């Protein structure tokens, strides 16, 4: 992809399972549906994914007030059980395509998961999905 990304988020986490199992949890639709959570007030309504290079995925999310939000993407790199690269787009009025790289590193019975999320705009994505303008009300309900 010949795009430049001005914003990069890196998150690292050790999760309590072997690498192969973590990779399956990340890539089998039925499992994804069970842990996927974009926020405490959101439900996951469906997960479709076609795990191969060029394969597409879509994840349906539903806010507590019924507002739907679909995330779509395409797998660019699929290297089980080590690495995934996929595009990620919130289906919003002005969708912005972003890039997610996930690496799984074995630590024996545990696995280190590294997520790199590259995007080009500070104000799109999660801040847009919540649909509120960083208000104190919103913050209070997120923190309570």
């Amino acid at each position, binding site marked *: 992809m010949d795009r430049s990304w001005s914003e990069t*988020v890196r*998150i690292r*986490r050790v*999760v*309590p*399972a072997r690498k192969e*199992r*973590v990779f399956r*949890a*990340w890539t089998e639709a039925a*499992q994804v549906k*069970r*842990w*996927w*959570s*974009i*926020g*405490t007030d959101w439900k996951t309504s469906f997960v479709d994914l076609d795990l191969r290079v060029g394969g597409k995925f879509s994840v349906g999310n539903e806010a507590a007030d019924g507002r739907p939000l679909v995330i779509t993407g395409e797998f660019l790199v699929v290297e089980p059980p080590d690495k995934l690269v996929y595009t990620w787009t919130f289906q919003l009025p002005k969708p912005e395509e*972003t890039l997610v790289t996930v690496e799984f590193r074995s630590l024996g019975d545990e696995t280190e*998961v590294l*997520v790199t*999320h590259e*995007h080009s705009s500070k104000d799109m*994505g*999660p*801040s847009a*999905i*919540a649909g509120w303008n*960083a*208000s*104190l009300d*919103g*913050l*209070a309900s*997120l*923190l*309570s």
Partner: protein
Amino acid sequence: MRGKKRGTSANLDLVFSALSSPTRRAILDRLSHGESSVSELAAPFAMSLPAISKHLRVLEKAEVISKVKDGRVYVCRLEPESLQWAARWINSYGALWERQLDSLSDYLEKEE
């Protein structure tokens, strides 16, 4: 009292720590309806004035409130900008992945 520059990681530390107390959240809630003197703020709490002042200093240092002298009393006012930075962080991809990985960890532990 000046804290850390707004929106920086150090300021976010102060903001989230300031928000980690029910008393301070109640004070912010009260101030979101308008400015208020220190004694007015203290009234609903079974707490001494110095104890309330200590909470106010934490909020001031995080720059989520400001305190100005108006005649003989101090008046506190909400400074929403630091909270907006905190909200922006909560709504960032970083926070989203923190939540996702929390949830994945819980799932993997449960299913073990």
